[in-house]
């Protein structure tokens, strides 16, 4: 190689190195690069606890007391001509669909070994983990290799009377002797990262809360179109044929959940790995 060609090659290499390594434009963000991070198990435990509170609120105060006040709830609640709200399992599915639309890559699913819909029956690793959950009544964590998702299953307890009565009386229910506090199923949560920085954890909690807003909001929107719509505002079904507005529902949810969630968030942030 003659001197001229060597000089030219060296110059080209220098230019290429500058182009590729000198970060005159700032490097693209990477969500989990550096900084403190919270194990995903802890993050998912926080949103699972929020979910328990939201679903108990919906099941007890809206479905349970609403049914006595004249409101209906059905699997077909979105079908034309059906004047009903979503059953608790479908409330969760609405929240899960909202999560799917959000930029937060959090997955949420509900299943059981005795589901009303056969399509929700656990199999494979979830079936094995669920057997352990029924025995210990504690969550199970694992890594789903094919989807590369960190996964957690949390027991779904029969926390309110309507859970038990509806599942025992449903014509498609494969089990009709449920009692209060049974482990009726499990919520499965998944996330693509093993740990998240505290700010990402906050985004996850916000996305889940937005899911509850969307789920309940979809019902309220539907209820407005009923031939005889319930009054929507400050009052709850325990007072009669009423539905709380989305804001009132979420305020009650926040009253029940925010203190414990804040404690868990602080604990998680304090215990975050450097």
């Amino acid at each position, binding site marked *: 190689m003659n001197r001229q060609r060597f000089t030219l090659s060296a110059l080209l290499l220098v230019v290429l190195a500058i182009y590729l390594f000198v970060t005159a434009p700032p490097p693209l963000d990477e969500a989990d*690069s550096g900084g403190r991070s919270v194990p995903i198990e802890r993050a998912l435990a926080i949103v699972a606890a929020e979910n328990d509170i939201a679903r108990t609120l919906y099941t007890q105060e809206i479905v349970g007391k609403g049914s006595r006040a004249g409101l209906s709830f059905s699997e077909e609640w979105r079908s034309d001509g059906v004047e009903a709200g979503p059953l608790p399992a479908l409330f969760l599915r609405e929240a899960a669909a909202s999560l799917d639309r959000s930029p937060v890559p959090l997955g949420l699913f509900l299943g059981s070994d005795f589901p009303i819909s056969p399509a929700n029956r656990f199999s494979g690793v979830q079936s094995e983990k669920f057997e352990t959950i029924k025995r210990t009544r504690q969550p199970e964590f694992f890594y789903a290799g094919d989807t590369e998702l960190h996964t957690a299953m949390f027991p779904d307890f029969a926390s309110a009377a309507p859970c038990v009565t509806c599942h025992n009386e449903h014509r498609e229910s494969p089990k009709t002797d449920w009692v209060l506090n049974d482990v009726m199923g499990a919520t499965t949560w998944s996330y693509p990262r093993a740990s998240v920085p505290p700010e990402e954890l906050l985004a996850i909690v916000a996305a889940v809360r937005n899911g509850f807003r969307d789920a309940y909001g979809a019902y309220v929107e539907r209820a407005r179109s009923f031939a005889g719509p319930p009054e929507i505002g400050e009052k709850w079904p325990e007072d009669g044929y009423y539905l709380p507005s989305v804001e009132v529902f979420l305020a009650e949810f926040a009253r029940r959940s925010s203190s414990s969630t804040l404690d868990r968030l602080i604990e998680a942030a304090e215990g975050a790995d450097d």
Partner: protein
Amino acid sequence: MSEPERIQAGRKLGYAFGGIVAVLGCGALLLPGTESLRAPGAANVGHEELACADCHREAAGTLRQQLQANVQHLLGRRAAAVAVGFAPVTNSTCVACHDRPDDPHAAHRFNEPRFEDARRAIRPQSCVSCHAEHRGVRVTGVPPTFCVHCHSDLTLNDDPLTVPHSELASRGDWDTCLGCHDYHANHAFETETVVGRAHRPETIVEYFRGGPPPYPGSIIYPPTRPDHE
């Protein structure tokens, strides 16, 4: 000019001419209205009016940032690689227009661990597994018997069908499912209960290939137009 020099000059002229033709040709392909020439195939049914940019959005960052990020990734100094040029087309791209709040087979639901066998077989967690674009059809990659991957043990306590679902499943009549059921439940009709009146499997195959929907009733959630925010 000697003979070798003439040959060398002619060769250089040839290269220059070829280069100019190539640049002009590529440039012409970038002109507005030439999108269909760049597409790898005909748009799928219903997507004929879409522009390339409706699905193919520019990736985040400048080209230099993207290349730097990927070099860092190759050197092990960055966890994830990034898209160069255009962002990949994902479920979010599809859902931006095809969001259906009560889709019983929403793709994201198949990320649940228990669908591992189905994921291995037909990848239902990804829209493009069944709707690969630029094929000029409606459904790709799956036969009309794909329901078997999730519903092989189907039994209903109160089965409304003239031939129970469990019997159809045990007989392996998986090409009958879509004769009554619209996979994404986006047509407003009463589900048929008389098996003999179900749409024929060949009608479903024709629908997959881009034929008219066999399901009666209106579209419940028409697609929205792409949002270019």
